[in-house]
């Protein structure tokens, strides 16, 4: 459960709204902590590369490694929610 005071959630949502504004995805609701990158926003691997760069440049302002978020128990995760990313960023502040 994402703490309500997570400081990264709003900047992440703003970034992702800008990120995907002209994409051909069918997501029409409001983005929130449960919104998933692949299932809801239609992300592909190249989009994750670009998102990582954007988070580093615009949210955390450093080149934070994302391997521990993207890998669980030796396997790559199938999807990620905005809340999971926000939580990961908070853990690495």
């Amino acid at each position, binding site marked *: 459960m994402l703490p309500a005071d997570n400081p990264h959630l709003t900047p992440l949502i703003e970034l992702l709204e*800008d*990120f995907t504004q*002209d*994409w051909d995805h069918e997501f029409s609701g409001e983005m929130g902590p449960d919104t998933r990158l692949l299932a809801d926003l239609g992300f592909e*691997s*190249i*989009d*994750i*590369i*670009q998102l990582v*760069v*954007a988070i580093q*440049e615009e949210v955390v302002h*450093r*080149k*934070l*490694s*994302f*391997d521990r978020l*993207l*890998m669980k128990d030796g*396997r*790559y995760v199938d999807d990620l929610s905005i809340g999971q990313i926000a939580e990961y960023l908070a853990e690495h502040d």
Partner: protein
Amino acid sequence: MTKTLFIGLDGCTFTVLDQMTRDLPGEGLTMPFMKSVMERGVRARLRSTPNPLTPPAWCSIMTGKNPGEHGVFDFIRAEDKGGEVFWTLYDARDIDTETIWSICSRKNRSVAALNFPLTAPAPEELKGSIVPGFIPAKHLRRNTHPRELFERIKTQIPGFDPKELAWDFDKEKQAMESLSADETAKWVRYHLPREEQWFKVAEFILGNDAPELMAVMFDGTDKIQHQAWPWLDQALLPSNPQGHDKQMREVCLEYFHNLDGYIEKLVTMAGPDTQVFFASDHGFTASTFVLRINAYLEDMGYLAWAHSDGSDQAIRREASDFANLDWSKTTAYCRTPSSNGIHIRVAEKPGDPGIRPEDYTRFRDQLIVDLLALKDPDTGEQVIVEVLKREEWFAGKHMLRACDLTLVLRDHGFVSIKNLRPVVAQRPHAAGTHHPDGIFMAVGPGIPAAGEVGLRQIVDVAPTLLYSLGVSVPSDFEGVVPDTFFSPEWMAAHPVKKGAKTRASGRRALDQEMDAGEKQQIIEQLQMLGYME
């Protein structure tokens, strides 16, 4: 006013350019404007970086320094962490020195750089326009600098279509997998509208903003030559091509004819007072065989492949064509086909995998002997004709990240790192590959109609462009302004000004590990570029 127009032509070679600027029987003159450029200007072969590859070579063009100094060696960057090798993707933040775009911006010269690799993300303080290359359409808006430029382009250029302009990875990958006659021609044809889109963007920025340094890179030359080399090299083309050969030749000529038209329009728009320069990051030639370098290293006892447990994940990993090795038993290996190099694993402390530091020189000398000893079983010819030591070819603060040894193959091809046999296999058909000698040309006021002059180095391009703009040349640039490219009168009236050293970029990226999706993406990029077997 645009003082300097720089047209990059990825992979362009005089082998092709010379025939396109001649009146050929049955084909006519494909590039009449470039013919006039050659007649009115100066040209030289341009020696690329030691491994003639797009990212390091364009970075040398953009920085005036060798990869050992600018720090970009390949499409991907790897860190050997003892038990595992981690891979990272290069971007603009990895260029560890000032680019000409930043230097001009700092000197209050307006710039535009279109379609150059590793130009995103652009530094926030950059005063100029960047539309980066190698970025998919979905991400072009956010990576265009300044951000509002994308909206200008989108709303003001009739027919602008980012999907046509930018790389479509899936389409390129599919084309690589299907090499039927019809599909190959379609794939070449796919680049025709791409180049037109880049031309439209260049035309828009040149016409509306007239930056003092206007630079655009056309990369269809490289892509087409990789796939269609047998129809571009007259030595390989049938004397009277028919059927598929004829179709391929025609679409190739159409591409180069269109390109000639775009160049003519840009040069005409810039006006007679503009100095115009052309450069390519490397040349092109025919690759006739495949060298499976890691298989050879296994034979010689330097390398062991990872054990596959047969799981879906392991099978996918094997199929990915990405060096999948048993790191505990590997002392020397090739990481990527595009690197064309060998990394030697040195143990950081006793008990770590790799050779002992004190054994390095002896080990490397023996490895060189073993590499040069490899003979083509069919012809008896030497397969690896030169082995370059990094301290001799990649001097600079990033030297230790270069391959310990860089290989030059007899046909200038890129190695394969697949776990396949035989070690050396003839290709059924010649494939395009990079040649170390690209092109460097100039035309305009102060530039003599000198024809061909002596060989230039890739690091000479950056100082030449700054000189043309009237900007002093940083004292730590490795290249020089070629006096053969300017008339004595021009150089007397415009002496080369030496300036202070370049400034630290301050954007050097920290180490970062790459996820599987990223690795796969890079593999796809390498495949589409023809660096994979």
